[in-house]
């Protein structure tokens, strides 16, 4: 059980997983999101490489309608 913060909310993951795995589990396409991991933007090609750990802070954002 891993506790971390995603988009400002506490989240528990059953298993350790990479960013890519997290996105896949949520049906999110890598191409339309940007991910910040502990305040560092993660290049898309590294989504497979970054394993999420306890206490991590993650931001997953997308473009929304706005003015």
């Amino acid at each position, binding site marked *: 059980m891993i506790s971390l913060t995603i988009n400002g909310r506490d989240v528990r993951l059953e298993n350790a997983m990479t960013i890519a795995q997290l996105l896949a589990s949520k049906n999110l396409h890598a191409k339309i999101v940007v991910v910040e991991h502990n305040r560092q933007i993660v290049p898309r090609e590294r989504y497979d490489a970054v394993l999420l750990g306890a206490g991590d802070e993650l931001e997953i954002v997308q*473009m929304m309608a706005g003015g």
Partner: protein
Amino acid sequence: MFDLECHAAALDSAGMAGALHIAGKVFTSRLMLGTGKYRSAEEMNAALEASGCEIVTVALRRIDLDAPKRSILDEIDWQRYHILPNTAGARTADEAIRTARMARAMGLSDWIKVEVIPDPKYLLPDPVGTLEACKVLVDEGFVVLPYINADPVLALKLQEIGTATVMPLASPIGSGQGMKTFDAIRIIVEQAKVPVVVDAGIGVPSDAAMSMELGASACLVNTAIARAQDPALMARAMRLGVEAGRAAYLAGRMPVLPYASASSPLEGVVR
């Protein structure tokens, strides 16, 4: 009907027309649209189409992992429109910088509309925080379009540090109050070496036309179109207003006179 191609040709031959140039890109439309507050994606796309716009603004927001909403990129043709992400929501320079970096990481554009807005009621931008964020972002290679109050000194400072435009407000965002900052925008235009884009507060096409008559390079409109009863028709109206104002600016307006001046001949009246 009025043939815009002929018009453009005529203007070009006179060396007057010219398109809108921002950071090396060339645009024929001088109307930019925000994508917020539409009742539906269909209404938004109809409005974008009718407006003739080439640049649209979007915001960056967290995905709700439990109930993801569609990204704006699923709803508009982002091959067709040039995407201008904004930093809306940022209250400080740091937040704006962070948002800008994430926006660029999306891979669509290194343009950023910088908004640093501490105040939720009037949504007026922070001059100091905006300048600070812009300095950092210009250094990092962004094409920076800062949203500002209509402050001529701030506008000069921003163009000096290398922003691609300045975007002074006409009146508070989404208020539809129109050209409350008319005089200040006139001064900003007079001093500007980068395009001046009037942003925020435009409510009707006459506001947009007035901006362009003053010599602004473009207008950005969102709420006035999205919240019109018929957004697509209002988008057309705004397009016509911008074109009207631009043409009037190029045509050279008559002087304003304190008195009247007869349109019909004074002599030869039957009496």
